[in-house]
């Protein structure tokens, strides 16, 4: 096993990886940007190396600086976490080129799964269903393909991602009209004018499968996760196992995921994502990294996925038995973000002056900040993940709701009020949602809740703290302001973001 591992990331995931390293007696090397010099992931590490200025390109995306830190520290392996360089094939190759171990798949596997065309053809090769569609430069041919599968269809750049330039078309006229524009976006955004038309899967659920491979063709799954609760293609709440999933369909999904990963002789842990609508499922993509939502899998399988990554890399084999993994209980996770749900979910930054994460039996909190920590503007706004575990889904959901109630973050606005309302929605309780439900239905309900005026006592308390600081100043002789007038001057107050 390695003696020293460098974590090329920050925030909650760097803290979480460091925890497993310490459990295994491996020294953890942190890296940081200038604004993160006092961050929690740095405080928890055995050793730290400064990468550069705050901008990600100069720090956490700076391959040269990360390799220099690895060399200076004597680390034998690099864990990329998620985001940043985790799915950058050039980085993986550079790490291996420097004689170090990349805790992830091979550069070729990252490259082929990162290329949508290549990934789709791998899925087709093993018989995993893909969303029906066609690629081409001829609008007539695309229209014929669309007529065969049936509208509505999605028109997008063949090499695109993240919904950029994506258009929903309802008939051939709309398809022909949108064709040229999509071509232009494809060429300017992705360097290839090819257009892809695919069936729009309506009212779909997002089901993904955690897999692990030894790099020589042995692949096993570690159950599925359901991540249907999304806002703008961003997952908000995730759980394992999926609820109300037909057992036969579930088996076919698990098998397809294993087949896709086995086809590329996948090394390490990864996730194969699917859309599920009624009794159909479709391969979406494969993520060649540790996912944000991996804790729900860890809780229901009892397997530490970071430890698994380290063991696969160090020993070249899967340290798992031959028998199928069976879920034990149910786990649900909510992502706490620094964003203002009452103001178009704008990202927030500042100092989280008072932070209290929930505690209790059957709870796990993966957090990247404590009281007094800065939330910088430069990075992903995820602050923590709160995960509840129970023998069944209703109890897990109740525990998550309680935990979200107990969580407190003051100083930076977070999405906690949004999450508290979300996990109590009747549709969420009975698992009757699809990937667009939050935007289509829940946001209106939440806006009404968020728009309700704060209770009078909240305003009174806010005004009182003004008075308190004024009276402290008066006592210390800094100000002649008498108590009375200080209080009279307090207010008025408003709820920001709502008027």
């Amino acid at each position: 096993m390695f003696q020293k591992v460098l974590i090329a990331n920050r925030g909650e995931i760097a803290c979480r990886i460091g925890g497993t390293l310490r459990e295994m007696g491996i020294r953890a090397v942190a890296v940081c940007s200038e604004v993160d010099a006092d961050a929690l992931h740095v405080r928890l590490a055995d050793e730290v190396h400064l990468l550069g200025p705050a901008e990600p390109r100069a720090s956490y995306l700076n391959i040269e600086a990360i390799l220099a830190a690895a060399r200076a520290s004597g680390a034998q392996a690099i864990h990329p976490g998620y985001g940043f360089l985790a799915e950058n094939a050039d980085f993986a190759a550079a790490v291996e080129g420097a004689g170090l171990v990349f805790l992830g798949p091979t550069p070729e596997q990252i490259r082929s799964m990162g290329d949508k065309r290549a990934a789709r053809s791998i899925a087709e090769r093993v018989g995993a269903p893909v969303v029906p569609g066609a690629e081409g430069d001829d609008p007539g041919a695309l229209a014929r393909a669309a007529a065969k599968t049936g509208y509505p269809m999605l028109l997008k750049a063949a090499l695109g991602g993240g919904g950029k330039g994506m258009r929903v078309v309802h008939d051939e006229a709309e398809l022909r009209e949108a064709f040229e524009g999509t071509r232009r976006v494809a060429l300017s955004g992705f360097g290839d004018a090819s257009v892809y038309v695919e069936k729009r899967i309506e009212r779909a659920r997002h089901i993904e499968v955690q897999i692990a491979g030894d790099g020589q063709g042995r692949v096993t799954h570690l159950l599925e996760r359901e991540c249907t609760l999304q806002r703008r293609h961003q997952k908000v709440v995730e759980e394992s196992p999926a609820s109300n999933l037909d057992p036969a369909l579930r088996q076919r999904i698990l098998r397809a995921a294993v087949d896709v990963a086995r086809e590329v002789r996948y090394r390490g842990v990864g996730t194969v994502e699917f859309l599920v609508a009624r009794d159909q499922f479709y391969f979406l993509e494969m993520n060649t990294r540790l996912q944000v939502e991996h804790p729900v899998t860890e809780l229901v399988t009892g397997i530490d996925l970071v430890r698994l990554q380290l063991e696969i890399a160090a020993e070249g084999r899967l340290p798992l038995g031959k028998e199928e993994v069976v879920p034990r209980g149910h786990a649900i996770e909510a992502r706490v973000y620094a964003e203002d749900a009452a103001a178009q979910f704008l990202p927030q930054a500042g100092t989280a002056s008072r932070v209290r994460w929930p505690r209790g039996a059957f709870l796990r909190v993966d957090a990247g900040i404590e009281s007094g920590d800065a939330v910088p503007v430069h990075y992903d706004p995820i602050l923590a993940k709160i995960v509840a575990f129970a023998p069944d889904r209703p109890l897990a959901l109740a525990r998550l709701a309680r935990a979200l109630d107990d969580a407190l973050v003051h100083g930076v606005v977070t999405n906690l009020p949004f999450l508290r309302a979300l996990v109590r929605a009747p549709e969420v309780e009975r698992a009757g949602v699809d990937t667009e439900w939050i935007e289509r239905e829940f946001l209106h309900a939440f806006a009404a809740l968020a728009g309700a005026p704060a209770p009078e006592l909240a305003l009174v308390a806010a005004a009182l703290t003004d008075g308190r600081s004024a009276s402290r100043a008066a006592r210390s002789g800094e100000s002649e302001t008498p108590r009375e007038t200080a209080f009279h001057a307090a207010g008025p107050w408003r709820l920001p973001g709502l008027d």
Partner: protein
Amino acid sequence: MRPVELVPLGSGRYRVTVDQSTFEITVEVLEDGRLRLTHDRGVSVLQVTDSDRKRFVRIGSADFVVERVDVARAGRARGSEDRLESPMPGVVTKVLVAEGDDVKKGQALLAVEAMKMEHLIRAPRDGRVAQLRARAGEMVNGGVPLVELQALESG
């Protein structure tokens, strides 16, 4: 805007006027800094955290963020739409105009980026850029004035 008036009556008692209603409360500061408010409907324990003009208030398991309004400033902004502020803390990534430029309603003036999200600041009406207080690459806080727009003389 909801004005609050507090009149101290001695030994922790206050007469409060808010939303046209007036009532009395007793305030105690607990050892951990939380406030215990006793009022005619019972007792509430609140945690208040200061953060610039914002106050984060926790009552039970509900959080509220209230912001102190600078009356003079709010009046100016409402009156003439002449001052455009940073919508969030972030980095100014693009400055698309220069001082003295005439701009059209809806025209993008600058871009502020935070956490991979770009927000374009657009002109709320036709006008002239009287003052530009941001440079590309500069970090700004939320609510900081970035552009002063001046009305064009009509005719």
